[in-house]
């Protein structure tokens, strides 16, 4: 009996010490820097080490594949489809269908749009089986490395990150609620900004997001609208940890709803009830009211309306461009080598997605603040939206697509097919008119 007590005590003491050490480390290396916005450079070092390991892993796979005489498939890019010369009037030939037929089957083999809605294919392997289709058992060393990766990611990184995430979110809710009791004024705004920034920085560390900000002199100012391309819900955290924005969105239930309600106590965000979202005039009115008040923060909007897989920018919905204030475009480009940040909402729910993010190696991205743009004379909202979209696509190295992000879930409009039919008919009918004249 007596033998057990000292061991029990020892065990308790050991546990106590390790917890204390753990939390102190957490506090010193992660939370305190987050509060003050400084960095030790640990994440940069981590990133460089990871890259070296990935290079080695890819090398091994390529060598292994050559030995087994297989070719690895590379991301397939569409060659330039030769366009049938529809400008020359000609008569109908039975072989005319060959053109449409070939176009159709080419799009079955690969098309520009559906691949935007599934994760990008990588050329090198980042030790996550979820992003690799070439992974077979190549060598023992590689499998061991992968196994080690699993242990580190799920056993060490994931718990650490989850702790941080809870801390960050918890602090956000508690502190913003407290600030809500203060009278409106400069003090409240200042404190609210600091609290928001601090909590978002903690969340950034909870995802091990390594972000490089470019051109910070163009950061959005009060009374403006910030537009950015959308890849995942994390975009919000990335932008909001470097500047203060008024968020726009629908009120959700559950945890999200709690967070939203407490955030709005500290500073004015724009949350809509589900029923109000459909009412475009109401939405536009609230946005323009907010924008006119220069004491309020710039609005953050994602005009694509849905998450795209970060290889392209899809059609911007024109609503935010009709309001008439200065638009501050921002381009966000994720580095896919470390973990795919794209949220395929038809494949994963939000919680599942966040867990995947937190068990990746890191999220590395670049943010470019582009110079502000305003609507020019004679330009309508759609043209303005396209101009902004082109600027964002160019900066981020993304493909600028005319297609609508709504194609992720909905069908394509018939007008596109009608356009094709019209073109073809013009070609045929031109001939008829000539014939009737002669």
């Amino acid at each position, binding site marked *: 009996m007596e033998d057990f007590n000292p061991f029990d005590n020892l065990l308790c003491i050991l546990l106590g010490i390790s917890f204390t050490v753990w939390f102190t480390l957490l506090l010193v290396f992660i939370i305190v820097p987050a509060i003050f916005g400084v960095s030790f450079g640990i994440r940069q070092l981590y990133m460089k080490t990871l890259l070296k390991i990935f290079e080695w892993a890819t090398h091994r796979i390529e060598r292994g594949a050559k030995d087994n005489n297989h070719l690895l498939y590379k991301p397939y890019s569409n060659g330039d489809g030769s366009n049938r010369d529809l400008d020359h009037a000609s008569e109908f030939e039975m072989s005319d269908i060959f053109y449409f*037929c070939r176009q159709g089957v080419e799009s079955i083999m690969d098309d520009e749009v559906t691949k935007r809605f599934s994760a990008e294919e990588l050329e090198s392997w980042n030790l996550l089986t979820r992003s690799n289709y070439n992974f077979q058992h190549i060598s023992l060393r590689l499998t061991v490395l992968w196994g080690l990766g699993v242990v580190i990611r799920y056993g060490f990184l994931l718990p650490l990150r989850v702790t941080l995430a809870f801390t960050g979110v918890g602090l956000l809710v508690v502190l913003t609620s407290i600030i809500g009791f203060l009278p409106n004024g400069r003090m409240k705004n200042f404190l609210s900004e600091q609290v928001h920034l601090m909590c978002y920085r903690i969340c950034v560390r909870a995802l091990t997001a390594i972000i490089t900000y470019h051109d910070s002199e163009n950061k959005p100012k009060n009374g403006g609208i910030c537009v950015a391309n959308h890849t995942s819900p994390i975009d919000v955290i990335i932008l909001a940890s470097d500047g203060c924005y008024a968020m726009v969105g629908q009120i959700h239930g559950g945890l999200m709803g709690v967070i939203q309600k407490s955030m709005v106590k500290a500073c004015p965000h724009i949350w809509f009830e589900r029923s109000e979202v459909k009412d475009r005039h109401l939405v536009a009115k609230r946005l323009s009211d907010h924008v006119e008040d220069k004491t309020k923060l710039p609005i953050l909007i994602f005009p694509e309306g849905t998450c795209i897989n970060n290889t392209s920018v899809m059609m911007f919905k024109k609503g935010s461009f009709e309001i008439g204030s200065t638009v501050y475009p921002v381009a966000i480009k994720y580095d896919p080598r470390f973990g795919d940040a794209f949220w395929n909402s038809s494949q994963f729910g939000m919680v599942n997605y966040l867990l995947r993010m937190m068990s990746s190696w890191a999220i590395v991205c670049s943010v470019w603040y582009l110079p502000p743009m305003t609507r020019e004379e004679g330009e309508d909202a759609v043209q303005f939206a396209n101009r902004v979209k082109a600027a964002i696509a160019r900066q981020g190295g993304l493909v600028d697509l005319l297609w609508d992000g709504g194609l992720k879930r909905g069908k394509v409009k018939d007008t596109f097919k009608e356009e094709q039919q019209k073109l073809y008919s013009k070609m045929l009918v031109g001939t008829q008119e000539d014939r009737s004249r002669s």
Partner: protein
Amino acid sequence: MGSRASTLLREEEIEEIKKETGFSHSQITRLYSRFTSLDKGENGTLSREDFQRIPELAINPLGDRIINAFFPEGEDQVNFRGFMRTLAHFRPIEDNEKNKDPIASEPLNSRSNKLLFAFRLYDLDRDDKISRDELLQVLRMMVGVNISDEQLGSIADRTIQEADQNGDNSISFNEFIKVGNVYILYIDIDIDI
């Protein structure tokens, strides 16, 4: 570990498809990955809806006919073998295939099989002739609402007149070959791996 291709393609299957269609190993794995990404139901077969989800195909005037060509008579699902068999028609004819032994079974991408594929896009009822109605249907799909019935009718009549040789007012496969043969290689698709 959450991979999209839940049933990976076995080596024997790849070999069989290679023999049947003439695609290379890497082309087959590439197209298999494409097949699985289109297969939203993840049951190893594609339905018509899976094809219609491709926007560039949905706006193609002949989209429905092309989709139809993938499905065997009366069936609503196509598996990977069937998918590849249809795609094989679009593979370019390689030099070493041109002078093959004619007694050996004809490859899927032979000139005459390509022509047969195109012929079947017109000949919906599979009676081996393209009637005036069938021709009109395809014409209507390609021009939409932009040409009147009469004009379309006269285009159809002229086409049949030029192609029809035995005077039955419809176009048989042999007659089709004569008008289509020159252009048929236009359907070839270069898959660059």
